[in-house]
């Protein structure tokens, strides 16, 4: 067992990660030891990353204990880079964490500085000289490469950087040179944020956290208008919008809506969010209030300018689309469906339901010969039937404890299961359309043939 991490006091006493536990205990008998819990750490890192998203939506994990925030263009919102860095460090320290941080023009440089020159803000375009004095370990390269560099007598980043690139490439590979030049600020390499970069974004930051319904609704309304203006400039609408609510105590709530066709009209967006918020099991809990409310638009697509249509059909289509979006926002898109025909003769698969927002219109052809029942049981229900052997229709059958006498029958319609899809051979189904003496009409089938398998009878559907 080895030490995974040490606190400041232990570090002062010359304990370090990697040291065997027995050694550490030998040096300091009264050592307070806690077992490492990496999954819990990862979860916590994600929670801190969530909290950091109030500063920028572009947050990447730098496992196991680091975060990379892309704050390009956002620092003016926080009175400058130094103020932003101080704010984050103070807030995290208040939450009980020991923090090291730095700002630079490239992610690798920022990371190197944070680990080895805590608190540095590299002047723009001057990453190379700022990280030059740092040890090569700060580049976070493979152990083999770092070891190789040391053996070559290179101790600081500046020394490595002064070597010619062909030299380094031949010795350590192209990848190493790429990472080096990225750290020096010569090559761009964007971070991989946890969330996809939204197409459009608008946010409100509140000096005092807000918790009342009206203010929150007004904020969403205003943000929807901002996003609408941006979308309109690009001639686009969005098919997905997400509202993120950042609580003062760190928790984040996210609510998303999706639409079938791109939208940008603020009233529609507001209405859909209202439906979604209404349908939440636990209402949005502001806690002590929200610091930041952010609205992101995604799946942006070209959209015709919204004109008041003189074509009545156009208006009807729009109304139906809005209804579908509203119902999907309230009940979930898996509950609002349309039918889609399938190329198969298996009865239960002839048509499927797809979320209405994704359905594309197509036409149905009425079957020339066979009638089909109005209601189908997802699981055909077994019945006891008396029939003429070997393949006649039933004369009587018992279903759900009621006995039915057959007055008329048509069939069999033999539907062979798609044998090319299944490993084991599937019995054939012989379907019969029967009417009992009261006029009730059923769709029954016999699974298997008398004499071959032990046949079983089922009710699959009922006719009007």
């Amino acid at each position, binding site marked *: 067992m080895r030490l995974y991490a040490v606190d400041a006091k232990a570090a002062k006493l010359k304990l370090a990660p990697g040291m065997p536990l027995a050694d550490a205990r030998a040096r300091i008998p009264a050592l307070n030891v806690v077992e490492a819990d990496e999954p819990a750490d990862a979860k916590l890192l994600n929670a801190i990353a969530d909290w950091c998203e109030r500063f920028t939506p572009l947050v990447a994990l730098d496992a196991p204990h680091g975060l990379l925030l892309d704050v390009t263009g956002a620092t003016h919102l926080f009175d400058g880079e130094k103020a932003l860095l101080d704010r984050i460090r103070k807030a995290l320290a208040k939450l009980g964490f020991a923090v090291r941080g730095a700002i630079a023009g490239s992610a690798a440089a920022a990371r190197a500085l944070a680990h080895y020159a805590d608190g540095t803000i590299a002047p723009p375009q001057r990453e190379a000289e700022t990280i030059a004095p740092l040890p090569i370990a700060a580049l976070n390269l493979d152990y083999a490469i770092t070891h190789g560099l040391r053996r070559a007598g290179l101790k600081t980043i500046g020394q490595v950087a002064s070597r010619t690139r062909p030299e380094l490439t031949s010795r350590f590979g192209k990848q190493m040179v790429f990472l080096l030049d990225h750290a020096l600020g010569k090559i761009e390499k964007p971070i991989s944020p946890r969330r996809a970069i939204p197409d459009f974004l608008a946010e409100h930051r509140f000096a005092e956290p807000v918790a009342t319904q009206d203010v929150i609704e007004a904020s969403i309304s205003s943000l929807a208008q901002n996003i609408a203006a941006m979308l309109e400039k690009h001639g686009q609408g969005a098919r997905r919008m997400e509202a993120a609510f950042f609580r003062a105590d760190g928790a984040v709530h996210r609510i998303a809506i999706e639409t079938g066709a791109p939208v940008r009209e603020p009233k529609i967006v507001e209405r859909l969010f209202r439906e979604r918020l209404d349908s939440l099991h636990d209402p949005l809990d502001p806690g002590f209030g929200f610091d930041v409310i952010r609205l992101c638009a995604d799946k942006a697509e070209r959209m015709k300018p919204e004109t008041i249509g003189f074509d009545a059909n156009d208006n009807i289509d729009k109304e139906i689309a809005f209804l579908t979006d509203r*119902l999907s926002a309230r*009940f979930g898109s898996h509950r609002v469906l349309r039918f889609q025909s399938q190329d198969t003769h298996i009865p239960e698969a002839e048509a499927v339901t797809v979320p209405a927002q994704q359905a594309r219109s197509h036409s149905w052809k009425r079957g020339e010969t066979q009638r089909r029942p109005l209601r189908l049981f997802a699981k055909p229900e077994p019945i006891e039937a008396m029939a003429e052997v070997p393949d006649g229709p039933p004369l009587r059958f018992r279903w759900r404890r009621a006995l039915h006498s057959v007055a008329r029958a048509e069939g069999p319609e033999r539907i062979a299961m798609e044998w090319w899809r299944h490993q084991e051979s599937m019995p054939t189904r012989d379907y019969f359309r029967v009417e009992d003496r009261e006029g009730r009409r059923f769709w029954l089938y016999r699974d298997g043939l008398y004499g071959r398998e032990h046949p079983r009878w089922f009710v699959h559907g009922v*006719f009007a």
Partner: protein
Amino acid sequence: MRTYKEQIHSLQELLRTDGQPHPRVALGHAEADARLSGGLACGTLHEVFAGDAAAATGFTTALALRASGQKQLLWIRQDFSALEQGELSATGFLDLGLDPSRVILLRAANASDALRAGADGLSCSGLGAVVMEIPGNPKILDLTASRRLVLAAERKGVTAFLLRPDARAEASAAETRWIIRAAPSPENEDDDWGSPIFDAQLARNRHGGTGHWIMEWSCDDGYFRQTNSGAVVSAPADRPAATPLRRAG
């Protein structure tokens, strides 16, 4: 909480609609149409109770087809009724003459969701009809709820249908109430049987009399037909009652 102004406004709307009669659409069955003062009233609420669930579903589909013209249709069905009565089949709709691409299907978890979705659907004038399939007698589906549905239907002229399998008839503001059972196919035709035939009882009619007929639906034409037998049916003594029906209200 509604202000007085809103209440007066909605009363005025009600009077206005009552002043002009609902547009009516003929069902095709001469006697039934006559009893219905010309046909089924659009832009209001109709209830269909099930003596037989499959027959009631087919009858409701037929009425909704007549009432919605070429417009889209919202069918709301509660999860429970799919388990009990079966899922609605697109090919089954097609067979009856309803193009499945005209249907938006909503799966409601409970009666409250079904009514809410129904109200939202009735506010969309792009729809021709809204069908709410709600089994049993949930408390939330009371007289007030039915009144609200009537008002919602009248506001935008969308016709509303309540399909109620396994339910007792109760006080309701619906324009008509039907009790539907299966009816046997006519004796003479041996080969091409299976056209939907309904034992349809018009048990309640706000603006006319009641009646009881055998009504056959022509899938090809999209109209009801009066069958040759035509006579009023009396329930045979040996037929087991599918659900206990108590008339009230």
